[in-house]
Structure formats: structure tokens, C-alpha cells
């Protein structure tokens, strides 16, 4: 399998702060790669750097063999990278429908089909279709955010803590949906819910202090008590 996405010694500054200090990892096509690490380790910043929202100051980000670290965000997104941000990024004043409309890149049958699938996945969205996004409950916002990323045909999805605020049953649904998409869409997942991460993840990277410090297959991680304790605080 080839690397769909590759980060090589990426460093990122925000203002005068040096946040990422050497992030390197590869994402294989068709896999779910999980980024782990404690609060403030730099997981979100890593995803934002890939999206070009906090451009890398050093190192390279390669997507499908092309360096994208210097491109503007919208170009990166257009290349087929979807993003579910940590804070959901709902347009509070727009209705659910309008939120989706803004997200849709191409209006075609494919999209329509995916839309049906999404509404089946999250029936709540259909219920609040004409309501402003700002009125949604925390979990519903999370669903909408995920839905917006699902609606386009993306080769790569960056998902930042999807399970946050979701009821267990919905978490399950999201996991299922990710597994369903796996063949067309590669996924980079930041997740604190270890159950979820370990169930659907194929490969993991641990980020600490802005550096990738460990990596391996999910199986290895599950078995490595030492590593789990040290970096993830799970005993």
C-alpha cells in the first residue's frame, strides 16, 4: 500500500509559539490512522497544519505525492481532504440545511446518495433541517460537523475527536460509518475515547510536546501496557 499522506519533520509556529516541533508520520491508503496524546500535545495543531490552517514553518506535508504544505486551505480541501474540526465549526446562524449546502462541493447524484445515507445515519439532522445550527444540542452539532465532511467525496478525512459529546449509541454509529467508508476513504483520527480508537484504528501515532514519539499498529499498542501507561495514562 502506498502512503496517501506523509508528514516529514513538520514544525509549526503559532505567533511566537513553537507548537509542533517535529511531526512525522505516514498514512496508508484505506487505513484508519489514530493520533493519540494528552491535552495540549499538538494533535489538533497537526490536523490544522495538514489543512493549511496553521501552515507548517518547516518540513513537508505530502498528499498523493504532492507537497501541499504551502497551499492555501481551500485548495487543500479541494484536493479531496475533508475536515471535522475539534470545535465543530458550525455556522450558527445558518440552518442545518444551509450548513450542508455550503459544504457540498458538487451537486450530483453521488452527493444525493451520500446525503440520504447521512440522514439515515443521523436522523436528528433531518428533524432539525430548517433550524439554525446554533440551536442544536452539543451532540447534534457534532453530528452536523461530521455530516458536512461526509457529504463530499473525499479521499482523506481528518476527524478531530468525533466521539466527544455523542451518546454511546451514536458513537457506535459513527464507528460503523467509518468502517463502512474505509474502502474509499482514508481516515486520520484524533480520539480520546480509547475504546473507539482501538476498535477502528489500524495504526497509531503518539504525539507528545509537539513531536511524534511512538508509532505502531493498533494491535501492538493494545498489548503494550508500558506504552499505554506512559503516554496515555491508561492502566
Amino acid at each position, binding site marked *: 500500500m502506498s502512503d496517501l499522506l506523509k508528514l516529514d519533520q513538520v514544525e509549526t509556529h503559532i505567533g*511566537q509559539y*513553537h*507548537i509542533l516541533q517535529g511531526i512525522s508520520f505516514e498514512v496508508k491508503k484505506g487505513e484508519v490512522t489514530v493520533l493519540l496524546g494528552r491535552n*495540549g500535545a*499538538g494533535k489538533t495543531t497537526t490536523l490544522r497544519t495538514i489543512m493549511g490552517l496553521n501552515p507548517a514553518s518547516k518540513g513537508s506535508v505530502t498528499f498523493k505525492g504532492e507537497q501541499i504544505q504551502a497551499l492555501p486551505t481551500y485548495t487543500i480541501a479541494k484536493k479531496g481532504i475533508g475536515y471535522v474540526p475539534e470545535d465543530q465549526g458550525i455556522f450558527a446562524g445558518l440552518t442545518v440545511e444551509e450548513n450542508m449546502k455550503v459544504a457540498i462541493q458538487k451537486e450530483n447524484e453521488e452527493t444525493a446518495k451520500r446525503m440520504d445515507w447521512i440522514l439515515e445515519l443521523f436522523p436528528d439532522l433531518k428533524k432539525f433541517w430548517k433550524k439554525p445550527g446554533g440551536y442544536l444540542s452539543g451532540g447534534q452539532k457534532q453530528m452536523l460537523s461530521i455530516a458536512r465532511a461526509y457529504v463530499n467525496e473525499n479521499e482523506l478525512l481528518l476527524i478531530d475527536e468525533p466521539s466527544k459529546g455523542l451518546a454511546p449509541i451514536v458513537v457506535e454509529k459513527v464507528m460503523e460509518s467509518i468502517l463502512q467508508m474505509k474502502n474509499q476513504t482514508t481516515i486520520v483520527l484524533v480520539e480520546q475515547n480509547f475504546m473507539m480508537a482501538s476498535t477502528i484504528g489500524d495504526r497509531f501515532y503518539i504525539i507528545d510536546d509537539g513531536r511524534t514519539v511512538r508509532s505502531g499498529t493498533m494491535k501492538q499498542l493494545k498489548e503494550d501496557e508500558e506504552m499505554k501507561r506512559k*503516554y496515555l495514562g491508561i492502566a
Partner: protein
Amino acid sequence: MRLIQGNKMTAFILVIAAFLILLPFVYESRNLFILLTQIFVFAIFAMSYDLLIGFTGIVSFGHAMFFGIGAYSIGIFMKKFEPTMTYFFLAVLSTIVLTGLVSFIVGLLTLRLKNHFYAMLTLSLSGLFLVLAEKWRSMTYGNDGFTFRVPELFIDRTHFYWLSLCLMVAIFLFLKRFTNSPLGRVLQAIRENEQRTESLGFQVLHYKIAASVVSGVIAGIAGILYAISLRFVNTSVFSMDITLDALLMTIIGGVGTLVGAIIGAGLIEFAHDWLTALAKEHVIFERWIIFFGIIYILVVMFFPKGIVGTLSTYPWKRKKQTAVKSKEKVAG
């Protein structure tokens, strides 16, 4: 750390103030003193505005309202009665009462409104004051305005210079203390997140009204000084231009800094003086207003947080951040 800086700033201001107090003994360009007096007056006005925009996060387009009340109070008292200190104090008193009352009512009426709507409502209220001043001609002589005499004490412009200077420093110190008081801190919290301030147990409207009243009264005092310095008042004291002046001075200096308001007032008045002087020497400066406009644009480009705001965040905070973590580091 910010605070130490703040204290340094205060000390610096006091030194400058001392220098300015002594200045008339060694130097006597009355024109300069008139210019400086003007700066002090507008600095007071701009500081009062800063309390709203910089500390409480309220943008008002009607601040001229209070300025005008002050200016007309003194003018009418001096014209209709006697230009004596007694009436002067009565005028000051009535300014305080009127501006306090008006800002209280305006606050009650308007402060529940959100940003733009609030700004426009204040604009309309001050517009109504303008119309009132225009229409109440027996009192105000309409937009031609009227001149009046001032008490003995203020006739000498050097005296008046000192008075304005002292008042400016006093008001600066007062506002500094006010904004740093527990109450002032709550104002800043309101600026940041009104709803959260509420749920912390602070009665937001009370605070906003307090800020509005303090700001209104101080603006009224600035209006008094302004009218005395001109010995003339007309409807222009209620005009949008006056509000814009306060706005510009505050923003150029840097909102939420107080000193910025003073610096902004100084910068605008000096630039104005300088550019109009240039206009007499070079033809291209005949349209000096263009250069004035360009100054505004450049300030935004090079001092995005205003002059004081930008300078005070730039050179001091050179801290190299290395993702300070107290947790034990793990070797790769």
C-alpha cells in the same frame, strides 16, 4: 508582568506631566499651549470613550451627546447668567447631573441591545440632541452658536492650560484605578463574554450602566473644557464629527490602554497642525486631508492594535515558547 509595565507607563506619564506643567515657565509659544490644551481636552474625551470601547467593549456612535451637554451647560450658564466661578461650578454641577442622568437613561434604554444596534441607537439619540440644540434657538442660537465670557481664572490661557493638564492627569489616574478595580475587571470580562459574566454572578447591566455613566460624566467635563477654551459653542459639539474624533483618537492610540487615548489625541492634533502648516509651504499639501487619511490607513497597517497597544505587546514579550510542560519528558 503586564501590570509592572502598566506602572512603568504611569510613572512615565507622570514624568511627562511634570514636564508639561513646568513648560510654560521656560517656553512661551502660546500657540503651542493652545494646541496642547486642545490635546488635553480631547484626551479626556477620548479616555472617556476608551472606557466604553476598550474596557467594556461597547461601541457608541453617540458619545458627542455628553460632550455637547457639557459644552452647552457652561455656555448657557455663562451667557445667561454671570461669568463667575459660582456659575461655573453650577454649570459643572448641572453637567454632571445631566450627563449622569442622560447616560443612565440611555444606558437603560440601549445597553440591552447588541453591538451595531446599540451603536446606531446611540447615534440616533445624539442626533436628537443635535436637533434639539438646533431648534431651541432661544437658548442655543441654533447652529450659528454664541460666544460667552468666562470667569477671570480661565481667561489667562496658561492658567487654563494648567487646569486642563491637571484634570487630564487626574482623570487618567482615576480611570486607571477605576479600570483596575474589581469593578473594572468585571467590565473587561463583559467585553470578552457577556453571558459568561452573567453566569459568574455579576449583574451585567449594572456594570454597563456604571461604565456608561462614568464615561458620560467625563465626556461632559471634556465638553465643558472645550467650550471654555473656545468661549463659543454651537451645534457642532453634538455632531458626528466629535464622536468620530474620540473614536479615532482612541483607536489610533490603542483601545483599552487609556494612555493610547492621550497619545492618539496628541498624534491627531499634532499631525493636523503639522499638515496644515505644510499646506502653506507645498502645493501638494493643499489637499492635506488626503495625507491625513493615509495616516489612518498606515496606522492600521503598521499598528494593528493602535500605537500603544502594538508597542506594548511587541518588544517585551520575546519569550521563546518551547511548549512548556511540567510533565516528565520521555526520551524517544
